[in-house]
Structures are given as structure tokens and as C-alpha cells.
């Protein structure tokens, strides 16, 4: 546990990417595989099922520290992180645990699962008493599963690449899908050659950056580019191997069970095929609003009615594997040709469709097409170099997204919640309202980003001084501050008080010049709704 706690502290204490990679490299070089496998597992954001409610941990810590619950809450309010608050208030014992990380996880943490509460409490208190403050913090993080230490999966992969001498893409691929953090897994991960027995494993997604400036000026000849619509659904990978079908979302979640219509069609794919594409709600040849798809997301049991109301299709973008061979290095035009051939065997009604190309012969014509995005219910265009390989992660150069300009409105800050990670001690998650006809502010969108650090501090101070009420973590705030918000899409929604749901809302800027009364009205925003929705 000590080596990991030290690693965590080092990662936490530096803002510099190189220093983080160096610390990770040093750790993985020396760590026993049994520990390293768990560290990897936690750092890339995986976590075991939570055995104990956070509320219980807080309660027991307050008892151990002999402070009342209200004082714990005040402390948490100042710290903004429950694992840290607990570590800070527990009485210091001077103890330091010598137990290894995998023992802490396997014998102590996983052992908590399913025990009656009094036994869990005894074990937790015992653990705290054996640990230093830093170890308690790590241990609490292991329990709550909220590791945020400014390390992305990409960074971890880079460090492991340095340790193993493998390339990052190979490691990224081996880290996809389902695996258990065992020494055997860790050793296989770093082995120079590995027989990939795992048939469900997806490839890392290739993601595009937004284009900067005018494509006509920067991207050269238009015929060197394949252009498609940028759809607003769930990016996914469809795998057909060894007679089985797997569907992965970009969030690396296996969602095979959630989209039975897609899976039924995919069972007809030839064996040894992996497709990159988008899950979209689709009816009678037209895409439905994203809000419809949300009714399907996370729904474990699918009623016949829901399947009928919101049918989902898989719109294929790319071919990553064919005949069991990794095709990612092939040029895009070849992959597209083969993909077209595969998809042609399927009905044009769905649920397995080919992403249509936007056929134009000039950048000007493409720009005109882009203007139609809203009517087509897409977010803009995707530009892909026709000879590009399918790369790993977000990279510049070969693929670009060319989104339409967002909608903007001026809205009023009406309530706030704490942020997470480095902003956990500040109020950074805001809800904004707009005026209705009766002169009330109606909650309309939530947004988290878009302000500078200095503005965040100012707004945080304003929130603390102008809190009207507290409901759990939420503070309602005196309406005063006006912000310009941007968002990508807008739909009617019965689930929102405003009757409207927006996509990707974010703060463009703080309108310190704008009086409260001049914020936008619901009527103005309703006028933005697509006419047929």
C-alpha cells in the first residue's frame, strides 16, 4: 500500500505530464504484478462494486473522531471530498500499515462485500486504526471508487509502453473490454507476444478533433476527403467473432443486451468482423431526437412498447477487422469499400445501415450542406482523409469534426453544486434559468465548464454569500448573475420543467454587462425548437 500511496501523492502533487509519466513508469517498473494490476485497474477508472454506502463511512468516521454529524458535514463542505474529509478528521494513531495493496484490496476490501453492517463497521474501524493518514485516504478512495488524480488512461498507457517496450496502441487494445486485475493479466498485458484469446475485446476508438478555421484553407483538395454527417447518438463498436456478437459503447461498456434488434441483425454478419459506428434512434428512415435514445440508455428491461416507440439502429462508419484480421492500418477508402460490401447484404430499413456519404465536389458546396445540418438533425460534418488509417484515441490530422455553430442564450444562475476533482472545494456545477411569461425563472440547463479559474473563484464566492437555501448538496442562489450559454441541440421534453431539453450545454462567457431582467425568455428558446419535433 505504501508504494501506491506514494505514487498517488506524487501524481496528485504535480501538474506536469512528464513528471506524472515518470512517476508511473517508476512505479510500474518496480511494482509486484499483483499490486500493479490493481493500480492499473483503479487508475484507469475501473472499480469493484461498492460494498459500503458512503453515508455509512462518514457516520462511522464521525463516531470514531467523536464529532457530531453536523460538524462532519461542515468539514465535508470545506474539503469537498468525502474520502479526504474522513482521513483528515480521524484521530492520528501514528500507525503505518505494511500490508501490500493487493492484500488490502483482495483480503480486506473485497471481503467487505455482503457482510452485515456491524461487521463491516468493525472491519473498517480496524483498518483505519492500522493506517497512516495518507493510507486512510487511499483506502477510503478504494472503497468509494472515486479515483481522480489527473491521470488519463492515455497517460497510464504511455507509461506502460515505456516500461514494456510495446507500442501504445497494442497496450490500449489489450486494456479494452473485460479483464480481471490478476498478476497473470498484468504479465500478459506487458508480454511481447500474446495469443489474444479474448473474443469480446474491442479496439480503441479513433476520435476526431474539431476543425480549427476554414477547411477550404487548411485541408487541401476536397477529393482527398471522405465526408459524412456527424450523428448525435452513441458511438459504438459491433463485434462478430467465433459465432458471438458483442456491442460496446465508447464508454467501454458492454451494451449487447440493451439493443436486441441490432444484435439480432449483427448475428448475420460474417465471422471475424468488427464495425465502428453509431447507435441511433431511428424510425421510418429518419433519425429521432437524442432524448428518445435516452429512454433506452440504462434501461435493463425493454418493454415491447419501448422497442416499438424507439427502435435503434447501428449506423456503420468503419471496418476495423475483417476475416479475423486487424484492418486498421488499411487506408480508409479500402475499409469503406469492404464495409459497403458487407452492409449491402442487409435490409435498407435497418437496423444495420451504412453511414451515407455527403457527396460534393467543392468546399463551398460542403459548407452549404453543413448549413442543412439542423434540419437533418445532425451536429454537422465529419471529414476523414481517404487514405487515413484507423488510429487510436483523439488525434489531429486525419479526422476532423466540423460542427455547426451552437445555439446561444443568456440565462441566470439559480442554483449550484460542488465540482469534482480539483474543483471539489468550489461550487462549479451550475443550473441556469430563463424567464417565463409570469416572470419566474424556470430551470433550463445545467453547465459545468467554460469559465476561467479566476471567474470560478469569483462565482464561488458569490454563491456562498448569496445562498438562499440548501437542499443536500444543492444551494439555491439569489438570481443575479447572467451567463451566455451555448448548446448543440434542442428538443421538447416532458421530463424537464421548462419543457425543453438541450444537448451539451456549456458556458460561453459571464455577461457581467447584462442586467438580470434582460436574460432570455422561455418563449425565445421555444422558438428555436425544430418545427416538426
Amino acid at each position, binding site marked *: 500500500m505504501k508504494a501506491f500511496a506514494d505514487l498517488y501523492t506524487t501524481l496528485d502533487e504535480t501538474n506536469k505530464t512528464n513528471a506524472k509519466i515518470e512517476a508511473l513508469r517508476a512505479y510500474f517498473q518496480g511494482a509486484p504484478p499483483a499490486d500493479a494490476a490493481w493500480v492499473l485497474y483503479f487508475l484507469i477508472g475501473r472499480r469493484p462494486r461498492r460494498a459500503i454506502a458512503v453515508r455509512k463511512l462518514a457516520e462511522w468516521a464521525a463516531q470514531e473522531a467523536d464529532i457530531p454529524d453536523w*460538524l462532519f458535514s*461542515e*468539514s465535508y463542505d470545506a474539503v469537498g471530498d468525502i474520502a*479526504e474529509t474522513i482521513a483528515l*478528521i480521524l484521530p492520528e494513531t501514528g500507525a503505518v500499515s505494511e500490508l501490500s495493496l493487493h492484500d488490502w484490496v483482495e483480503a480486506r476490501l473485497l471481503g467487505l462485500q455482503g457482510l452485515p453492517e456491524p461487521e463491516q463497521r468493525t472491519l473498517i474501524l480496524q483498518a483505519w486504526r492500522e493506517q497512516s493518514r495518507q493510507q486512510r485516504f487511499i483506502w477510503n478512495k478504494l472503497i468509494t471508487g472515486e479515483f481522480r488524480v489527473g491521470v488519463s488512461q492515455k497517460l497510464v498507457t504511455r507509461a506502460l509502453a515505456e516500461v514494456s517496450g510495446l507500442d501504445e496502441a497494442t497496450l490500449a487494445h489489450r486494456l479494452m473490454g473485460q479483464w480481471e486485475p490478476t498478476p497473470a493479466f498484468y504479465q500478459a498485458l506487458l508480454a511481447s507476444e500474446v495469443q489474444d484469446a479474448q473474443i469480446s475485446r474491442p479496439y480503441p476508438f479513433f476520435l476526431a478533433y474539431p476543425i480549427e478555421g476554414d477547411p477550404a484553407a487548411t485541408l487541401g483538395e476536397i477529393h482527398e476527403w471522405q465526408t459524412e454527417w456527424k450523428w448525435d447518438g452513441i458511438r459504438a463498436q459491433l463485434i462478430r467473432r467465433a459465432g458471438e456478437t458483442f456491442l460496446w459503447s465508447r464508454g467501454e461498456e458492454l451494451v449487447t443486451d440493451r439493443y436486441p434488434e441490432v444484435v439480432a441483425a449483427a448475428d448475420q454478419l460474417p465471422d471475424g468482423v468488427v464495425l465502428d459506428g453509431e447507435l441511433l434512434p431511428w424510425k421510418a428512415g429518419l433519425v429521432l431526437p437524442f432524448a428518445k435514445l435516452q429512454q433506452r440508455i440504462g434501461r435493463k428491461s425493454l418493454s415491447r412498447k419501448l422497442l416499438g416507440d424507439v427502435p435503434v439502429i447501428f449506423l456503420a462508419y468503419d471496418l476495423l477487422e475483417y476475416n479475423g484480421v486487424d484492418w486498421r492500418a488499411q487506408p480508409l477508402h479500402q475499409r469503406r469499400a469492404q464495409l459497403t460490401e458487407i452492409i449491402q447484404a442487409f435490409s435498407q430499413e435497418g437496423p444495420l445501415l451504412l453511414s451515407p456519404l455527403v457527396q460534393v465536389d467543392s468546399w463551398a458546396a460542403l459548407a452549404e450542406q453543413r448549413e442543412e445540418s439542423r434540419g437533418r438533425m445532425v451536429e454537422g460534418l465529419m471529414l476523414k482523409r481517404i487514405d487515413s488509417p484507423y488510429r487510436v484515441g483523439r488525434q489531429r490530422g486525419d479526422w476532423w469534426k466540423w460542427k455547426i455553430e451552437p445555439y446561444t442564450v443568456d440565462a441566470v444562475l439559480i442554483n449550484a453544486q460542488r465540482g469534482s476533482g480539483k474543483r471539489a*472545494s468550489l461550487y462549479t456545477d451550475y443550473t441556469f434559468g430563463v424567464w417565463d411569461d409570469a416572470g419566474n425563472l424556470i430551470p433550463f440547463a445545467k453547465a459545468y465548464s467554460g469559465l476561467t479559474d479566476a471567474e470560478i*473563484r469569483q462565482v464561488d*464566492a458569490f454563491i*456562498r454569500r448569496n445562498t438562499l437555501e440548501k437542499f443536500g448538496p444543492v444551494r439555491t442562489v439569489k438570481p443575479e448573475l447572467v451567463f451566455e450559454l451555448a448548446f448543440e441541440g434542442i428538443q421538447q421534453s416532458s421530463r424537464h420543467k421548462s419543457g425543453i431539453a438541450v444537448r451539451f450545454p456549456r458556458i460561453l462567457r459571464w455577461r457581467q454587462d447584462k442586467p438580470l431582467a434582460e436574460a432570455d425568455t422561455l418563449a425565445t428558446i421555444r422558438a428555436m425548437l425544430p418545427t416538426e419535433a
Partner: protein
Amino acid sequence: MTTRNNRTSLLLTLTEYGLYCAVGDFYIDPWQPVPRAVVTHAHSDHCVYGCQTYLVAQAGEHVCRMRLGETALLQTVAYGEATYLNGVRVSLHPAGHILGSAQIRVEYQGEVWVVSGDYKREADATCASFEVIPCHHFISEATFGLPIYHWQPSQAIFAQINQWWRNNAEHGKATILYCYALGKAQRVLAGIDASIGRVFTHGAVERLNQAYRASGVALPETVYAMSVGKVDYRGALIIAPVSARATSWVNRFGDHASGFASGWMRIRGARRQRAVDRGFVLSDHADWDGLLATIKATGAERVGVTHGYTAVLARRLLELGIDAYAIETRYRGETNDASEAELASET
């Protein structure tokens, strides 16, 4: 203290100018200029510019002078020595916060009030140590009035700083340590191992170093960074106020590591928000246990809580059976609910 009959006495009352003693006609740490001010210490939120006369502890004369200017009428008094203002007995006693910091003891007709100002309980090489003054009515600060604030001995913190500085020096880097220019900077200077390398200072720190040295406090040799020409800062330690961070002033030091010494560094989020490489938990205020222990030790029957987490500390004291109340402070930025960013100057 023995119980008196007159429990409702208000020897000190809160006015729009600050704490006021009507009988003695003087203010303690007033917020706006007044005719007569008795001042606990030279930090700006306690020592306002423009009063007609000031009464301060002798030990703090040089640092108060630095803040108030040559023309201010400064009356000094040794710790423990009594002065009478309109028949009210006033004496100043060490608060252990910074050089010259004092608790103000006010006595009239057998009733004793003590105003703590800012204080800490741990010994500090740059100022006299806190003394517990028994009283009927104690007015305590509460800057770190939450149970999450618990200080390690400063020797352990200085060892961390030394180790960090040495390590940076070995990697050919300069080391910039940000801290409050009055008090913390000098405490750090007196605590570090100056044999590791040269020590440079920001102008704001250097001026106060001179005031400390003039007051007889031993500090290692420091060089005002602007006074020298092109210097190789590798291996050096630079002490600067937080306000210098993220300004072009730091560019001259080349490749460097940065740290911040403050009680606020106890919380990870506070350090990350400051975007420094290292946070050192070193405070000139009492921690949670220090506040509770001190308040109990005074034997006060009634306790006013000001400065920081006032409501929290007052509520806890009430639960512990001590008659306590929160005193509203003037600065919005210093109410108990202010964010770390506003509080981080730790005055």
C-alpha cells in the same frame, strides 16, 4: 475565574468600527480609522491605517511602523505591562502568532476580558510564545475552526521543506516557496537549513525581514532578488508572497519548483487550486484542538468567536457546555463560508 454576579456586563461591545470599550474609550483592532486603537498585530485585517493613536506591543513596533508609516502616533508597551485608559487597565500578552502579536487584556472593576487576536500555540523562533491569560470573557479567533485542521510539529514541516529544496537543488532547479510575507516568511527562514543554498527574497518579504532583524530576531542571510544582476538561481531558495505567483516576476528564476506554506494546504483541493507543486501545512493560527484547549484553559465563562469558522466553533463550544457566540466580522472574504481562494492569504 470566579463567577461574578454581573454576567450581563458589556465591557467591550461591537460597533460599526469594531470592538469598542466605552468606559476606556478605545477600539481593539478597529476596521475603520478611530481616535484610539489598541492593536493585536500588524496584519492588515487587524491594523487599519489612519487612526489617531495606536497602542501596540513593544516587540511589534518595527513591523507596525512598516505598515503604518513614519508619522503614525505609536505608543508601545512591553508584554505584561499595564496601561490605564480612562481608568480601564489594559495590558498586552504574547499571542505567538507573529512578531509583536498580542492578546489584549482589559480589566475594569474586577471584570477581565481578553481579545486573542490571531494566535498559535506552538513555539516559534521569531516571536514570543502564547501565554494563557485567565479571564471572564474570551474573544477567540477561529480561522481554522474545523476538526479537519490539525497541525504537525513545525520541525517536521521544516524537514519536509529542506528535503524538497535539497532535491530540487540536486536536479538543478530553483525552489520558490510562497507564503505570507509578514510572519510566515520569517518563521520559514528561521526554520530552514540555510546551508543547503542561497536564499533570495521578494521585495515585500525583504522589507519585513529588515523589520524583524531590527527587532532582534535572528534570520539567515537573504538577498533581495531585484538588487542583484543576472544570477544563476539553480539550487537557490526564493521566498515570495503568493501575489507574485503567476506574474512575470517568477520568470527570472528559470526552471523551478514551487510550493506554498499555509494551513490551507491541509486540503488537497486548496493546493491544486493554487497550482503549486507542493503544499506545506504550516500555519500561524491555532488548529482545532489548539482552539478548544486554549478556550478551556482561559476558564472564560463566555466566549466570543470571530475571524473564520465562527459559527462552527461557537456551536461546538455550546455543545461542550461553554457559553459561546459568533461575532460577525467586517470582511466578507473572511466569513466562515468564504472559499479557500479568498482565505488563502491567511492573515
